[in-house]
Each structure stands twice: as structure tokens, then as C-alpha cells.
């Protein structure tokens, strides 16, 4: 048995225990120390991920292929960026407790397990490990009513979604006799001869995962949790925990249900259309920037689903590039939101950004770059994510995919309206008092993500190649 395939996860888990112990035995506040430890563990894990050979381990429960490597690196990067963001925020909010980075770490282990899942049970275990840590994180500011509410809401709805997922898994197992992706794929080959029970099982699995990526109609929790959770947690939820379930979704849909694309494609198309529409129209009326980002992320998941709906290798490649650019933009945008702090208090209304270009031009420019990028305006990274998913849709070329592509580009124009509104508030409106000085960590994340977003265009070939080989691994 090739147990080293899971070495990054094993290492991270052990490191998590050690850091937890360290935090407990340390007398004085050890949050910074623990965060540094977690960041070091992430860096080490990333190196291990690169070392692991492509293989299937633990009797096929766990695979390490190019897809897993791509996803894990992205997850680690997203988690690390948000860990950096949390440092200063928690100190100022009075919630600097060493459990925070440790919870992020364990959540990351869960996500990495999901990315490697080759069995529905592995998938479920990873998903639960990820989610349980996030439930706690969402309620981390336990004296804050909104945060407690967000944690509770997320927990209750998340438990429901987990239930749906588990029910779907059990139906799938009952009607096909296996939970292994490979064997499921062998069992489910005839697009017309799929049993109803299996279809229902698949729909439930889809629903459970759609909840995690906050796709319509399983998005209800998103705005409230985004708004209520402490901002670094929101940043965390909107980056890596979107990637892992999405990769799992890709694995399940392309793997076990790969031969019955016709059965699930309409569902994905509907979910994608609904997410794009809701993401663009519902965001227009928001006045809280975290809620705006919530609807924005719903919309983004809709665009990424366009790639999955295509059901082709090019589509999966498009999804991966989309997720890559999305994580960078999202982390950067949340870094800018965390920098919104006036007289020691965090502010989060869009109106608070008024005239930011006059008081803090670098921050305003960075946030403007993220907004233009999310709107899909070239030459920023977000444009290329959209380009690849729409290319996949156009390549399939069926009327339904054309509808999806046309609706997609048109809703992106609607979405552009609210992104532009943020830019307008920052650049065109009269200035509000300046924000407090930014901590170095926040500046670092904002500048690093900004540089990635702007310079992505130069390294397009390399990223496309990496995503391409990851997609190829999935299609074998």
C-alpha cells in the first residue's frame, strides 16, 4: 500500500496537533506564533504535494493526480492568504485566539482530502472535516451576535446539505453496489438505462455539493454568513472552500457519472443560469460590501459551472482556470475590505469607500483592479477565466450551450454594473475621512493578489498548461 500518497495531509494533520499543543502549553497569547506555524506547515505541505507521485492509494480511496496537485496547491495558497489576513484583524477585534489558525489548518486538510477523493466516502469525510472547522470559524467572534448567528445558520443549513449528500451517496451505493468512482463509472455506462434511484442519488449528491459552492438554489446561507462571519473567515469561505467542493463536483460528475452526461447536463445548465442571473441582479441593491461579495461569488460559481456543463476536457480546464483567478481576485478583494477600518472600527458599507482614491490611491487602485477583474474586463485575470469557460461552451456548440454562453456574457454585463459602482464610489465620489493605516499582512495579500491579477496575462501559457494537464488527468 502506497501510504505516502497522502503524505501532505498526514504531515498537515500532525503539524496541526503540534501547533494545537503549542498553543495550549504556551502561557501568553500565542496566536501569532501559531499562525506562523500554520503558514510554515502550509509551505511544507505545498512542497510535499509537488513531490507526491501520481498514484492511487488506500485501495483506491485516494488518488494523487495532476488534478489533485493543482487543486491542493490552490487550496493551500487560498488558505495561507486568509491566514495572513486574519492575523491583524483578530488582534484588533479582540478575537485573537490560537485556535483560529489551527481550525483553518484542519479545514484545509479536509479540503485536500476532498481534492484527492476517489470514493464517495473519502469525499464525504473530507467535506465534513472542512465544514465542521468552518462552522466554528464562522461563529468565532462568539460575543458578536451577527457572527454567532452566521455560525448557527451555516451549521444548520450545512448539516442539512450534508444530510442530502449522504442520502445521495447511500442511494447511489444501493442502486449500483459501489462507492468507488472507478467502479461506479463501469457500472453506469448506458445514458438511457440509468435507474431512477441512481438518478435521484446523483441529484442529491449534486445538491449537497452545490450547497457548498453556494450555487442557486442552494445559496440562501451565503449572504447572511458572508455578512455575519468575521471578515477573514468570509475571505476564507470565499476562496479555498469553494475550490475543494468544486473539484469534488468535477470528479464526481466526470468520473462516476461521466457516461451519463446527458442526464446531469440540464441540471448543471439550470443551476449555472440561475446562479449567474441571481448573482448579477441581486447584487445590484446591496449596500454592504460583504453581502455584495456574497452575491458576486454566487455569480462566479455560475460562470465556473458553465465549464462543467460543457462536460468536456476543455470545460474542466476552463473551470480550473476560473477557480485559480477567482481565488486570487477574491483574496485580494477581501484584503481590501479588511483594510476598511476607521478609528479602530471595521466598516463595511460600500458608502464607506467614498473618495478612497483621494485618501488612499494604492488601495483604491487595487480594489478597482479586483473589481474590473471580477467583471471580466481584460487584461485582468478574471477575463481569462471567463474566456476559457465560454470557449468550452462554444466548442460544444449545441443550442443549449450557446444559450448558456449568451446568457453568461449578458449577465456579466449586468454584473459589471455593480462592480463599476464600487469603482465609482471610490473614484468619483467626494472623500470620506481616511482609513486607518494598513497592517503589513493585509498590504502584502492585496499587492500579491493584485500583481497576480494584472500579470496573469503574461503567464497565461503556463497556467493554461497546468490546468490543461490537470483536466487531462481527470479524463484519463
Amino acid at each position: 500500500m502506497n501510504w505516502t500518497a497522502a503524505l501532505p495531509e498526514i504531515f498537515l494533520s500532525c503539524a496541526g496537533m503540534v501547533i494545537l499543543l503549542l498553543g495550549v502549553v504556551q502561557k501568553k497569547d500565542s496566536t501569532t506564533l501559531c499562525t506562523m506555524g500554520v503558514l510554515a506547515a502550509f509551505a511544507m505541505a505545498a512542497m510535499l504535494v509537488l513531490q507526491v507521485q501520481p498514484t492511487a492509494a488506500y485501495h483506491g480511496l485516494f488518488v494523487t493526480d495532476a488534478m489533485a496537485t493543482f487543486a491542493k496547491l490552490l487550496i493551500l495558497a487560498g488558505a495561507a492568504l486568509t491566514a495572513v489576513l486574519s492575523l491583524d484583524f483578530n488582534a484588533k477585534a479582540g478575537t485573537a485566539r490560537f485556535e483560529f489558525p489551527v481550525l483553518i489548518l484542519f479545514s484545509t486538510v479536509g479540503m485536500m482530502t476532498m481534492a484527492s477523493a476517489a470514493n464517495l466516502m473519502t469525499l464525504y469525510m473530507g467535506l465534513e472535516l472542512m465544514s465542521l472547522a468552518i462552522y466554528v470559524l464562522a461563529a468565532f467572534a462568539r460575543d458578536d451576535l451577527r457572527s454567532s448567528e452566521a455560525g448557527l445558520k451555516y451549521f444548520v443549513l450545512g448539516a442539512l446539505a450534508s444530510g442530502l449528500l449522504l442520502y445521495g451517496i447511500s442511494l447511489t451505493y444501493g442502486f449500483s453496489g459501489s462507492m468507488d468512482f472507478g467502479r461506479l463509472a463501469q457500472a453506469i455506462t448506458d445514458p438511457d438505462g440509468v435507474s431512477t434511484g441512481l438518478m435521484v442519488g446523483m441529484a442529491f449528491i449534486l445538491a449537497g455539493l452545490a450547497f457548498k459552492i453556494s450555487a442557486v438554489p442552494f445559496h440562501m446561507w451565503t449572504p447572511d454568513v458572508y455578512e455575519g462571519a468575521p471578515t477573514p473567515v468570509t475571505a476564507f469561505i470565499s476562496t479555498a472552500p469553494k475550490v475543494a467542493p468544486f473539484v469534488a463536483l468535477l470528479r464526481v460528475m466526470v468520473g462516476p457519472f461521466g457516461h451519463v452526461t446527458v442526464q446531469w447536463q440540464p441540471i448543471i445548465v439550470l443551476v449555472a443560469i440561475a446562479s449567474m442571473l441571481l448573482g448579477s441582479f441581486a447584487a445590484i441593491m446591496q449596500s454592504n460590501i460583504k453581502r455584495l461579495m456574497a452575491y458576486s461569488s454566487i455569480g462566479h460559481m455560475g460562470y465556473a459551472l458553465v465549464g462543467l456543463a460543457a462536460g468536456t476536457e476543455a470545460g474542466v480546464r476552463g473551470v480550473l482556470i476560473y477557480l485559480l483567478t477567482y481565488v486570487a481576485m477574491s483574496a485580494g478583494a477581501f484584503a481590501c475590505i479588511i483594510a476598511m477600518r476607521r478609528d479602530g472600527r471595521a466598516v463595511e458599507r460600500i458608502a464607506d469607500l467614498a473618495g478612497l482614491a483621494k485618501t488612499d490611491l494604492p488601495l483604491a487602485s487595487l480594489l478597482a483592479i479586483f473589481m474590473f477583474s471580477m467583471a471580466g474586463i481584460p487584461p485582468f485575470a478574471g477575463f481569462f477565466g471567463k474566456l476559457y469557460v465560454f470557449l468550452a461552451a462554444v466548442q460544444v456548440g449545441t443550442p443549449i450551450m450557446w444559450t448558456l454562453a449568451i446568457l453568461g456574457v449578458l449577465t456579466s454585463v449586468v454584473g459589471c454594473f455593480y462592480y463599476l459602482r464600487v469603482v465609482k464610489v471610490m473614484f468619483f465620489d467626494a472623500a470620506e475621512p481616511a482609513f486607518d493605516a494598513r497592517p503589513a499582512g493585509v498590504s502584502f495579500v492585496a499587492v500579491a493578489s493584485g500583481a497576480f491579477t494584472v500579470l496573469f496575462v503574461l503567464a497565461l501559457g503556463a497556467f493554461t498548461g497546468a490546468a490543461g494537464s490537470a483536466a487531462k488527468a481527470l479524463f484519463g
Partner: protein
Amino acid sequence: MSETNIAGFPILSLVTFLPLVGVAILATLRGDEAAVAQNARWTALWTSLLTFMISLVLWGRFDPSVSGFQFQESRDWMPEYGVGYRMGVDGISVLFVLLSTALTPVCILASWDAIRTRVREYMIVFLILETMMVGMFCATDFLLFYVFFEAVLIPMYVIIGVWGGPRRVYASLKFFLYTLTGSVLMLLALLAMWQRAGTTDISVLLHTPFPYNMQYWLFLAFMASFAVKVPMWPVHTWLPDAHVEAPTAGSVILAGVLLKMGAYGFIRFSVAMLPDASAHFQPLMFALGVVAVIYTSYVALAQEDMKKLVAYSSVAHMGVVMIGIFTFNQQGLDGALFQMLSHGIVSAALFLCVGVVYDRIHSREIARYGGLSDRMPAYALVFMVFTMASIGLPGTSGFVGEFLVIVGAFKVNFWLALLGALGMILGAAYMLYLYRRVMFGRITKDDLKSILDLSPREIAVFAPLVLLTLWMGVYPSSFTSFFDATTGAFVQGHDQAMLGSAGQGLRPLTPLGTSPQTPLIRLGTNKIGVWGLVPSGVLGAKPLAFLPASTGTNLP
């Protein structure tokens, strides 16, 4: 594709990205605000002048007798998907590169005193805008073109929104969303062509035949983008708003270069790559062009705001350009290109003229002025030159373009030429009416009695534009020679494509009663139906199924 770059160094990349070096310098300027502003002005001016001087190499070394792309550069971008960083200019684009690099220093000079707040940021945005404009005209890769084409929106949005007039927020948003809506549909067309041809290299796409019903949809998608940019009636309504609210230099670039991007797109993509669909939609384009010419001329006549008047005249002039492009003959095309250049200079200069009095009185209302010629003789003279050029008086640049277009239109249809020429008469009406109300009469307003004539800086701005206008009017062949060979080959290629598709039975124009070689339309007869909008039988069947998964999937 032969790698020909007679300049010996990557001149197009240099011209495109040199302004960004200026941006980098501007970003590092430190000191008190007044000093930074002054240094920013000079840095931006020198950067743009240097860019212009380097771009003059194109003027000197461009070989007008060759019809293909010159000064080509090529770098890998996404080689396995047929996408590259490809730059090159041909007879169609070279003069627009020069127009962009020439107008930028003019704009920076024109903003010297007019822009007083956030000068450094203004100059940064303007230089970024220059990079995007030049890059767009130089790109010979469709994806690269699209990136530049869209990216132009960002600096222009900021220029209108930050340094604009009272309704700047509305105008900038309208500008952005109008243009974006069209562009995203073009993006889908781009993807479809990319998928079919396996590359986004324009020189390959130009020789890739697209099936007729695919062309039909591609044309509509391109039209959604380019028609907004031109702008064509009825999607022109963003233009007056954007012009009125934009600062003077913003209007200059908008009228001078940005509108040309739409017409350039029509020539480069719609007509060149989709010959059958272009012929099919010819009546529609003529109709829209004629409506633009006549309707917006009348609208211009009723305007009370000087900038709005010039903005509507732009729509009318671009209508003439569209008629010229869709004649598909050399006179029409040459005329369209010449008119684009001429309009780029003349309308830019007219906006500058408005800016001169706006800087002094802070009003653009025509009724606010009157009798300026007494106090401002030099200004009156300059304004006169550009008024005449806008009308199309022989001896000025405006005449050559309109004349050639009308000759080209005459070869297609008498009525088309007549209606197109109406624009010149109406143009004379609104421009002379404007001139009379602003310049002549007695000075009645007190503040006008002490108004100052052109300053040396303003003379420096106008002198090259006056010279160019007269040069283009008196000796047009020093400009037409640049694109004669290209348009000749272009028209020939188009005719061949028409003949070829006629042979294959793909020719769709029979329902409209035209012949393959010389597409004729009969305006005024009911044969034209709904201006060609109804697809012929070939199309009717399965409009969306033109890309079955099995055809020509060259992309991995």
C-alpha cells in the same frame, strides 16, 4: 507567414508600451502637489512626444506598395491553442497608429491648464489609454485585439468619471455598459471563429472560409460590438452624453480615435472575414448609415450645447464612413479610411475649439456666446478652418473623404449617393449656423468683452492640426498612398470571395435581387424587404446549429 520587420527592432511593441514607461516614471514622482503636477505634465508630454517620434519611423519605413502586414512581431502566448502575441500594421491600420500617437501629445497639451486636480493620475490614465489604443490598431491576433479593445474602456471610464462634468457618473457608466454589451457578444463570435480555425491569428482568419450561416451570426455579433463603438444610429445615444461630460481631451480622444476603432473593426473583421454576410447585410448597413447621416444632422441642427452639436456631427460623419466601407469598392473604402482620418483630426480639433472657450467662460451653451470674432480673431480663423473641413469644403481634408465615399456610393446606387451627399448640405447648415451664433454678431455678454485670444500653448496645439487638415485636403495622395495597395487587394479579395461563394451556391443575395460581382441595392423599392434582416432559406433551417461538435474542432 513570413516574419518581415524592416525596422529591425520590435518597433510596434516599443510604440505600444513606451507610454507605460512614462506611467512608471509618473508613479514614482514625489514632492508637494504643485511640483508633482508640473512634473507630471512634462513627463507625460515628453513620453507622448517620444512615442510619436518613434512612431514616425512607421511613416518613413512603411512600404505602401505591399498589401500585407508589415513590421511584424510574433511571440508565443498560448502556442498550443494557436494564440500568440502578434503585432503588425498594414495600410489600413498604420495611419491610425500615427493618428493615436499624434493626438495624445495634443491632448496632454490641451489638458495643461484645464486639468488642475489629480494631475499625475490624469496623465497616468492618459498614457495607459495611449498604450491600449495603439496596441489595438497593431494587434494582428484576434484575442490580443480583443484584450486591447476592451481594456480601452477602463481608462476612458476613469477619465470621464473623475475629470468630467456634472453628469459624469451617468455618462461614464452608460459609455462603459453600452460598449461592453456589444463587446461581449463579439467575444462569443471570437470564440466561435477561434474554435473553427484553431487559431486567432488574423492573417490566418482572413483566409479561413466560414460557412454562410455561421457568417450570418458572426456578423450580427460583430455588429453588436462595432456599431456601438462607431456609433451607428440607433445605438449612438451614449456618445453625446459621454462627449458632453468628458473633459476636453477625453472628447478629443473619444472622437479622434475611439470611434475609429468601431469602423476599423468593421473593415478588419466584418467585411474582410465575412464577405458573404457583409454583402447580405449591405442594405441594412446602408440604411443605418443614411439614417445616421440625415437624422443626426437634423438633431445637430437643434442642439444648444456646442459639444453635443459636434458629437452629433460625429455620428453623421461616421455614417458616411459606414456607407463607404460597405460599398465594397476601392473609392468607397479609400474614402471611408480617409474620412476616418480626416474626422479624427477635424472633430478632435473642433472639440479642442470648444474647450478653448469653455476654459475661459465655463459654459458650452451656444447662446452664452456671440461676437467672439471681434475679441478672438486667431480663434475665429482656426474655428473657421475646422468648420469648413467638417462641412467638406474642397481644399480641406473633409472634402476628399466625403467625395470619394460619394463616388463609391454612386457606383453602387444613385439614390444612396444622393442621400449620403445630403449629409454635406445639412453639415453646412448646422456648422455654419453654429459658427454664426458663436462668432458673429455683437458682443453683449460682459465677460466676453474681456475674453482673451489663443495663448501660445493653444496655438501650438492647433497649428499642427490646421496644417494637417490643409495638407490632407490639398495633397491627399500622401495619405491615400499608404492604403491604396491594401484597399485594392482588399476589394479584389472581396470580389473573389463573392464569386467563389456564388459558384458554390452559397450566395444568399438572390432574394434581394442583386448580382454576385457588384452588389446593388435598390433603395426605394419594396424589394429590399426589411433591410436584409430576414435570413434566406439557407439560414432559416437551424440557426444555432452551425457548430456541430464534429466540424473542424482543432482545439484540444
